[in-house]
């Protein structure tokens, strides 16, 4: 095994190159699960609960089964529903229209039960219980302590105490969730918009009690997931059951409303924070009491104290159940919530200390990489031009803010890949990863091309099938650090096999064969073969399998972002005008897609902080804004100028960068708004109504 070549010696890695499937995607040739059709295929739909909590007494499907075109009906899914949008029954029909009409014909008798959709209320002793078999609505709890927090606050010259409310965000991938299931004899084929072909294979095999090698999950192209497509969900099982019952393939794609209700969200977080520092800005203590809800799921904890070093801290957290769809991992789970609260209170602390917010961070950030990134970003951004908060006159005021993030992003040691070289010179690479839109297919080809010194177009990347060698789910920023080293090693092994074949032909030892730029030459210079000629020596394809190994990747990234906003004080409108990101991810495999991905993270931050808000109607438990009109995400006019710098740590090898860019800007945007108008925000999203009321409140006071 050899390491990566030097950055300057590489053709693709560290450089920018366009996606191998870009033309297919923009011309519509790329087929997503949504686009696929099979002969005789039926369309599945799920009847969903209109109640936030109820027992299903009976389901009368007599008017459904008799409907022309209806081929399969499921009524035995569950007997209790826990949120509006929970599964009740399902149908498969010849057309989507028939399936949709069929849903209206089910007669369901519910015993409606008390419910709760507000975290604060759900925590009370007399709150309606989400799960009847539990004593209360408190799920898992966390308590972490370091040092002596009381002593820490005694040492502090300045103490700030605030409570932050961070609302629920929903993933909203461009392609909604869905799959097609086809049973062939006793084997299950599933075309799925998934982030985990192998994970789904295992889960489906376990659920249906069939051998794993009789389950085949395929995801050629998929339109994003952000963590909401990491595992098997109930609709997969429903679809497979419908397909089994109907004995033909069934396609079950969720609609946008179902996406909002039933397949995941980023949990809320309510954080009561107390923070202490000495006059010189040295942090002394941090205390957090937090709770949050992932609906009927768990995982609302936050990694506090985030980023900055506190010698003393005390953290306690409670997950709270409410009658809403379960949360799911979403791009850097917990980190944006932690970032919002931490960066917000750090800015308030800086204000009280009379210190520059950047200076306060530099003083308390133990990470050496980020220390350098702060300086690069501040200089590019013009941080020295930041004005005192609320000091500007006029209708439009500007503000600046900054924030930091961290992530792990290491590789998975179980990853395997298979590289094949054919007698006609063709090359392919098979690996059971999937491209969730970040360019995985492209980098798989590029790493092989780099290793074999071929052109990108010479390598066929075969991904998105569970029948290919195992690769992890596309989550946790682990994909690139898992697949890049593995594919490189498999390609290196295949290249060595070809060198051995050439050496045989020349009757020399392999170390006498030099391969460079599609040409094999003997060390003595007497013999030479082109790539094509060398491959023609093969009687059968070379097929080499390799496993991930250490030394080509690493874990742990830093990153910071600087944000400038303009606030219209008469309307409360916030325009993010500039975002500067300084990030690191070791050896950048594709500079273009890396920067794309970072920019995407920043856009997500703009949505999270200024627009996105999963509402639940207190009286009915219904989400009133389960659509793309009322659940707002940024559009083209919300785009700021982006400037992204990759801090070079290529010697560390490949590290994932999926989650890191979705974190720092969250607090940075909030702080930029606060800097512009001179009032802090304690609740997300920071929408015009809140900005306007904050300005009014401030002017009312002064």
């Amino acid at each position, binding site marked *: 095994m050899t390491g990566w070549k030097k950055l300057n010696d590489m053709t693709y890695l560290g450089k920018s190159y366009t996606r191998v499937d870009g033309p297919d995607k923009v011309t519509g040739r790329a087929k997503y699960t949504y686009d696929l059709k099979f002969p005789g295929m039926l369309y599945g739909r799920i009847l969903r609960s209109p109640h936030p909590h109820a027992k299903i007494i009976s389901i009368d499907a007599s008017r459904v089964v008799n409907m022309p075109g209806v081929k399969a009906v499921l009524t035995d899914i569950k007997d209790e529903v826990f949120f509006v949008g929970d599964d009740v029954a399902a149908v498969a029909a010849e057309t989507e229209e028939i399936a949709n009409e069929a849903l209206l014909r089910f007669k369901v008798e519910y015993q409606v039960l008390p419910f709760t959709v507000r975290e604060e209320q759900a925590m009370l002793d007399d709150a309606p219980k989400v799960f009847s078999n539990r004593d209360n609505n408190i799920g898992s709890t966390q308590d972490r302590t370091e040092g002596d927090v009381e002593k820490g606050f005694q040492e502090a010259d300045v103490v700030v105490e605030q409570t932050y409310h961070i609302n629920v965000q929903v993933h909203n991938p461009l392609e909604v969730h869905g799959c097609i299931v086809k049973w062939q004899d006793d084997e299950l084929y599933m075309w799925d918009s998934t982030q985990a072909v192998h994970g789904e294979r295992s889960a489906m095999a376990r659920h249906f009690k069939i051998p794993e090698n009789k389950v085949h999950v395929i995801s050629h192209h998929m339109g994003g997931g952000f963590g909401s497509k990491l595992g098997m969900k109930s609709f997969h099982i429903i679809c497979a059951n419908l397909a089994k019952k109907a004995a033909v393939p069934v396609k079950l794609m969720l609609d946008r409303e179902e996406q909002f209700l039933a397949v995941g969200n980023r949990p809320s977080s309510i954080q009561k924070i107390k923070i202490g520092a000495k006059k010189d800005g040295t942090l002394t203590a941090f205390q957090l009491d937090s709770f949050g809800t992932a609906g009927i799921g768990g995982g609302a904890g936050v990694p506090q104290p985030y980023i900055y070093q506190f010698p003393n801290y005390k953290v306690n957290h409670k997950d709270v159940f409410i009658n809403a769809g379960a949360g799911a991992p979403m791009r850097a789970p917990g980190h944006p919530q932690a970032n919002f609260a931490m960066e917000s209170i750090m800015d308030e602390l800086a204000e009280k200390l009379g210190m520059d917010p950047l200076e306060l961070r530099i003083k308390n950030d133990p990470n050496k990489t980020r220390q350098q990134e702060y300086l690069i970003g501040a200089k590019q951004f013009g941080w020295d031009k930041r004005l005192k908060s609320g000091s500007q006159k006029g209708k439009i005021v500007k503000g600046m803010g900054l924030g930091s993030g961290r992530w792990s992003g290491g590789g998975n040691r179980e990853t395997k890949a298979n590289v094949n070289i054919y007698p006609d010179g063709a090359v392919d690479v098979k690996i059971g990863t999937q491209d969730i839109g970040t360019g995985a297919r492209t980098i798989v080809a590029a790493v092989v091309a780099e290793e074999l010194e071929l052109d990108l177009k010479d390598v066929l990347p075969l991904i998105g099938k569970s029948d290919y060698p195992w690769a992890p789910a596309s989550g946790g920023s682990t994909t690139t650090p898992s697949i890049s080293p593995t594919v490189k090693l498999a390609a290196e092994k295949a290249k060595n096999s070809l060198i051995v074949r050439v050496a045989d032909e020349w009757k020399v030892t392999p170390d006498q064969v030099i391969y460079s730029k599609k040409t094999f030459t003997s060390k003595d210079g007497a013999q030479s073969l082109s790539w094509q000629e060398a491959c023609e020596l093969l009687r059968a394809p070379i097929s080499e399998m390799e496993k991930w190994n250490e030394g080509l990747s690493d874990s742990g990234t830093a990153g910071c972002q600087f944000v400038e906003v303009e606030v219209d004080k008469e*309307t*409360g409108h916030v325009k993010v005008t500039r975002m500067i990101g300084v990030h690191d991810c070791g050896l950048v495999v594709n500079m273009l897609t890396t920067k794309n991905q970072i920019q995407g993270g920043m856009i997500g931050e703009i949505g999270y902080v200024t627009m996105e808000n999963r509402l639940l109607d207190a009286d009915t438990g219904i989400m*009133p804004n389960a659509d793309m009109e009322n659940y*707002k995400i940024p559009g083209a*006019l*919300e785009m700021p100028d982006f400037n992204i710098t990759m801090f070079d740590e290529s010697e560390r090898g490949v590290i994932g960068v999926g989650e890191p860019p979705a974190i720092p800007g969250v607090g940075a945007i909030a702080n930029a708004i606060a800097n512009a108008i001179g009032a802090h925000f304690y609740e997300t999203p920071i929408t015009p*109504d809140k900005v306007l*009321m904050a300005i*009014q409140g401030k002017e009312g006071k002064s």
Partner: protein
Amino acid sequence: MKEFQYIYPKNSQSVPLILGEYNGKALLYAGGTDALARMKEGINRPEQVVNLKAVEELNYIKEDSDGLNIGATTPLVDIVNSKVAQTYGGLSRAVETVATIQLRNMGTLGGNLCQRPRCWYFRSRHFHCIRKGGDVCFAVSGNNKYHAILGGSSCYIVYPSDVAPMLITLQASVEILGPKGSRMVPLEDFYILPKVDPTRENILQPDEIVTRVFVPKSAKQVKSIYLKFRERDSFDFAMVSVAVSAKVSGNKLSDLKIAMGGVAPVPWRAKKAKMVLNGNTVSDELLKKAGEAELENAEPLEQNEYKITLTKNLLKRAVGELLAL
């Protein structure tokens, strides 16, 4: 979506007869940008859909000696691009603020004026609200950030059209065609408040349609402007919008007309603000007074108090921009 009969009317006269034949239950479909969404959501489950696009005679922009005539099925984009329409004050610019280019390509002027409200309780099949024949307005104790601060009673929708406020200040009228012929109605009198009838937004009878919008030539003699505030610039209905038209001499406004969107169940004529401003020299002080007079009786719900400030500020800004035209 339920299966339906798709009806191609021969001409505009036949449409009221078709509507009458099906007791007003047939759904009018022109651009479809509103109707299709309601059908998909299940708010409307018509047995018959009348294809108004087939009535080609309703697609025109024509100027005569009295003013501008625009057929009801004229796509919004044509009004934006029409050289003639562009001479009628802020009309074209107001139309340009509607939705997105894709929706303006499909949506029609008549459809824009007759669109149903965007209230999320009205739009959701889960809520049988008063506007759909139920008993309550769910916004009153629910999520009401985007709802009315003026003119609400049994229902708190806001009227969503960007074009209507502008047209009202330009003194436009609409031609209404029924089975017995047509009549002209000032657009100002076209819309009705929930206290009159919470189940409909305008005076149209079940067998009537809007066939034409008429903007008098007087629109060319005044200055006019439409200011729309969106929560999201890329694509949004108005949080609050203000249309103003007036004769301007120096800092003095006369013949002032103000209509506001996003604040009430109808395009809201700001008559109190007009009383303060009309005929007087505009100053910051006077603008403040005008805003306070208009919003004096505003009744914000739990989450929309901000609209009072926003409306006052936009009114001030709109008049300021009008003076600067």
